[in-house]
């Protein structure tokens, strides 16, 4: 009884946060709603007798991945969405039709599960021998039966780390290059053999003052190849 009530509350919280995430204009509110979804899912995992997955869900998803997303939103200062007039009017009936198809599928699934002659075992957690969700059994399975996926996942994560470090690497600027302060020297400029090495070739987001100082407003630059 209590588990049913808790399930309803947590499911409502998860769905509410998910709808809020999609419907919000402010991107930071969307990120916070997504954190709410993850925490509700973590509580649902606890109801399903998987405490390890619940804790790891919070640590990895809500505690690491969403922190990264929140950092990006803050540092890039993503703007609020502006209400635009609807251009593609045919999308609304299509969306309604597809949603109806999805609901029909889910209803069919629930109906066939409820009316099937299969009797499930007693719920997980009430039998004394069931320890599927505990840490020891997950560890045992991970290092014996599922060892190959585990190692491949490690290599995948390593690839992601190496890729991130490579993309964010800063190239050392040689002395004498006219780089506008505040611009970012992209790697493409370093590998282009036709590069002449003066300030005008660098793609930069300059402030007005820096542009004036380095005479970037003229169509033909006056500092070419001195």
């Amino acid at each position: 009884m209590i588990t049913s009530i808790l399930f309803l509350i947590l499911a409502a919280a998860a769905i509410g946060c998910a709808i809020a995430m999609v419907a919000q204009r402010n991107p930071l509110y969307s990120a916070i709603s997504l954190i709410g979804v993850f925490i509700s899912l973590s509580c649902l995992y606890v109801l399903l007798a998987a405490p390890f997955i619940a804790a790891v869900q919070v640590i990895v998803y809500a505690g690491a991945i969403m922190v990264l997303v929140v950092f990006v939103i803050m540092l890039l200062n993503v703007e609020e969405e502006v209400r635009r007039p609807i251009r593609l009017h045919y999308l609304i009936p299509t969306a309604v039709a597809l949603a109806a198809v999805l609901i029909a599928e889910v209803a069919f699934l629930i109906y066939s599960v409820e009316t099937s002659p299969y009797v499930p075992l007693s719920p997980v957690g009430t039998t004394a021998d069931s320890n599927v969700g505990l840490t020891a059994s997950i560890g045992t399975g991970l290092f014996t039966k599922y060892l190959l996926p585990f190692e491949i996942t490690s290599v995948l994560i390593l690839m992601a780390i190496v890729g991130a470090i490579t993309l964010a690497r800063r190239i050392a600027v040689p002395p004498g290059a006219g780089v506008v302060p505040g611009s970012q020297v992209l790697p493409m400029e370093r590998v282009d053999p036709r590069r002449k090495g003066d300030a005008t070739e660098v793609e930069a987001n300059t402030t007005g003052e820096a542009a004036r100082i380095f005479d970037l407003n003229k169509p033909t630059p006056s500092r070419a190849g001195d």
Partner: protein
Amino acid sequence: MLNLDNPLVFAGIKFLGIFVAFNAVLMIVAYTVLAERRVLAFIQGRVGPNRVGYGGVLQPFADLLKFIFKEEIVPDKSTKFIYILAPIIAITSALMTIVVYPFGPRVVIPFTDISFEMVVTRFDVALLYVLAVTSVGVYGITLAGWSSNSKYSLMGGLRSAAQLISYELSLGLSLVGVILISGSLDLATIVEQQGNRWGFGDGLNIILQPLSWNIFLQPLGFLIYLISAIAETNRVPFDLPEAETELVAGFHTEYSALKFALFFMAEYVNMFTVSMLAATLFLGGWQGPGVAQLPILGVFWFLGKVIFFLFFYIWLRGTLPRFRFDQLMNFGWKFLLPVAILNIILTATLAFFGVFQF
């Protein structure tokens, strides 16, 4: 007498336990603030606040009244919902961790036969739960820094959040050594296993009982944990994000009155939490000489150890200068994290060769 199978009775007892623990933590935190001001004053050669009450013991209540009656300011261009949500996240995640710490062994109330364990709740993944809730606490600081719409707050908040997520890694990894020794993630089990290893604590060896604590099996892990914990709670020498001379007041610059009080309390509750975790995992929790004979003594041993760690924090604050931010990040990623991994490898190797069989 108390039918624990009835879910309502069970819930009622747990709520009572949570209520008692919550009040105890808040009182201890309030007096930690006072203790910090007094001890810091003595280190610096002056006397702290000693006017309110005898020796200043009513000072926390005076501070509370001041915080309640101050004017609530909300900056004009800030995002109001997140501005109010941030201290709530900070204090909630700070207080949620206290339910898993064992304060004492199983005690029996005299003249009845009710016995209960002095821990609010006991479940299998308690240590992971503590790490998970600490991870969520980062949002309080990040959102506070951003929603105040002020450059000091934003820089302080982002720096503080970057520091927190960097030192969370070595914090978690330093605890893996203890988990390898104990074979369990449950804090109460880890404390029970530090009872009498190798016979320390029995009979004439009762005074040598501290030698069976985990700190003697994991000295490197303890040092890594201590440094990471000090960085996690934004204390000196890692407190650049909130140092007064650097960034005004960091992420809580624009907060006033009760919301600032919540952040302030959240920092001290975090300090209390990591002290409790250090006492539980490395110093034997409620174990100590004489606990096997008189169980209620365990509560005093636990409180003594936690108070020692709090004093150690205050001592560091009065003694050490602070790290520069890039020195801090270098130290966390390039030194502390490899040393924590080295500790895991060493402990795992020793555990494989059966050194930790008791």
